[in-house]
């Protein structure tokens, strides 16, 4: 996705749905404003429409005429999709294995990041200890580390292990005599890397939400003798569902649409690489096969679009969680 991790902004929750009275809004509404918005909406949608139209046109038409001519010469076919799904005479390998890889990467990465971030957010908000504020700010500030900076060392860690002088701090996963890491060809490095990179923003946002839950509730539970673990499972998790849902959508889109982490840790093999890697690859190699590339691109964006449109309300709420100073 085009959505980068820090794109969710810390804004305060419980913002009023409608502050300006309905009457004032009606008075303000103008046909001129509507016209401009409609023009921009059309402009914003046309490129995607072009993708969809091109993907259902036969090869000859797609390569030799503009997609807009489809409306005067409507010839449609689904064969591009079947070819891209299974592979065909032009592109030998299909997108299907990559599609499953994307699902198998995105679901665990999302769950792991959420669970670990929720736990950390709870600890920072409700377990009083010295230095918790400093840790909170340090975690927030870790957004400063660009992914690019962490990739190479992390790759080395997965491949060769790490040691600080004689003290091993991450095991060398290579079996004796083998050049391949045990992690090679699995999703594990991808899950770990995505979880790590999501944590600063996830902890920050969930902390905003969890920290605002009513203090009396926590204190009452503590007085009743509930442990932190019980409070976390029975109070915090259920009450935080809105924040968790919005961040889950966000993180899922982010992982699904990622290319950089995927290229670094999965390469381009059908064993583990996601759809974005496949698309980048066929765009580079078969750039002229517009009918196939567009079909592949549409397959790759259909899941994020479904997630986005069906859960949009949560997503927007997530963007605004804790934000907008009233």
């Amino acid at each position, binding site marked *: 996705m085009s959505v980068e991790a820090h794109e969710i*902004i810390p804004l305060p929750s419980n913002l009023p749905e409608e502050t300006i009275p309905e009457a004032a809004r009606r008075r303000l509404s103008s046909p001129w404003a509507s016209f401009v918005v409609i023009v921009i909406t059309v402009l914003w949608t046309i490129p995607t429409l072009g993708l969809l139209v091109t993907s259902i046109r036969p090869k000859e038409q797609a390569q030799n005429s503009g997609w807009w001519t489809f409306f005067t010469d409507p010839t449609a076919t689904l064969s591009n999709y079947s070819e891209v799904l299974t592979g065909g005479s032009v592109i030998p390998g299909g997108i299907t294995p990559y599609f499953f890889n994307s699902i198998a990467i995105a679901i665990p990465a999302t769950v792991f990041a959420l669970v670990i971030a929720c736990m950390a957010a709870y600890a920072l908000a409700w377990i009083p200890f010295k230095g918790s504020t400093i840790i909170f700010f340090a975690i927030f500030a870790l957004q400063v580390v660009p992914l690019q900076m962490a990739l190479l060392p992390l790759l080395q860690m997965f491949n060769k292990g790490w040691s600080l002088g004689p003290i091993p701090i991450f095991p060398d996963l290579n079996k004796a005599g083998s050049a391949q890491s045990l992690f090679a060809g699995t999703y594990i490095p991808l899950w770990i890397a995505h979880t790590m990179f999501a944590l600063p923003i996830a902890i920050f946002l969930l902390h905003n939400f969890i920290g605002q839950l009513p203090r009396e509730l926590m204190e009452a539970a503590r007085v009743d003798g509930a442990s932190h673990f019980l409070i976390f499972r029975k109070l915090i998790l259920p009450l935080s569902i809105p924040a968790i849902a919005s961040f889950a959508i966000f993180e899922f889109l982010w992982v699904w649409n990622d290319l950089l982490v995927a290229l670094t840790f999965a390469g381009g093999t059908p064993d583990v690489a996601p759809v974005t890697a496949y698309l980048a690859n066929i765009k580079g190699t078969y750039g002229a096969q517009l009918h196939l590339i567009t079909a592949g691109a549409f397959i790759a964006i259909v899941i994020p679009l479904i997630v986005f449109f069906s859960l949009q309300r949560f997503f927007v709420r997530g963007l605004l969680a804790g934000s907008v100073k009233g």
Partner: protein
Amino acid sequence: MEELVNGLSKIGNAVAAVAIVLAILLIVFFLASRAKGRAQGPIAGLVFLGPAVLLLIYGLVVPAFRTTAGSLQDASGKNFVGLANYGWIFTAPGNSTFLINTVLWIIIAPVLSTALGLTLALLLDRMKRESISKSLIFMPMAISFVGAGIIWGLVYEYRDPSQPQVGLLSQITMWLGVDDPPNWLLWQPFNNFLLMIIMIWIQVGFAMVVLSAAIKAIPADVIEASELDGATGWKQFIKVTIPMIRGTLVVVLTTIMIAVLKIFDIVRTMTNGNFGTQVVANEMYAQSFVAFDVGRGSALAVVLFIGVTPIIIYNVIQLRKERSVR
């Protein structure tokens, strides 16, 4: 069929991995909650915060230090070369291209995205039925950079003017009377702006949604009072609306800036940094993973890091102010 079975088994494995991790966590929770007395608090803190802190140290903190150290070494990462890699970045002929481009990117793309997002938010505020437009303008956020690259490839596609056009932009300029439209992506230096348009296309929806919420959160009595004082239209916008949403505006702007600084996928898929469109993040990838010059790649990552630092420091200062108000 085989692919389907294969794919489903991949997803099965992923779900199993999730189940195993959650089960381990539950067991740890169960054991830790049996702690009694004064050990309770520290143990809970450790269990809740430990995994996140550990992942952050391994994934971001240590790699940041290692990359910084690596930036002082040569291509093989074995010999110390001092600041030679930084010298190379800032003095080697040709490198000014990606430095200048990156600066242009971090100024132009965020400012235009925010300005357009703000305009839309204001216009939407005056419309009765806003949700469809909002969804469609917001939609590109759900599309990957790779997908966006393919979508915009159809807009910028070049064909000889004597042939039927496939690219929408060429066709439109020809309809407007230009006989010989340029080959857009090779058209230096304007191709940089054409790539930025893709980023703006993606980010405007984000700016719009957040700013729209901020505008709606302005208390109605502030608006009414300003109207009683005779402030309407433009004057009201400059004197009332802008100051009221200033904080949110800054957050939106800096968030997009951080995203842009690390921008990599758009340039990689559209031009791969050729034709005068290279940026720091893609040069870093090319140096590390194509040229295998770890020293230069690391130095470029450090440059990105230094670029983001002031923005994050600013955000931390803002955040501390807000929290002290609460």
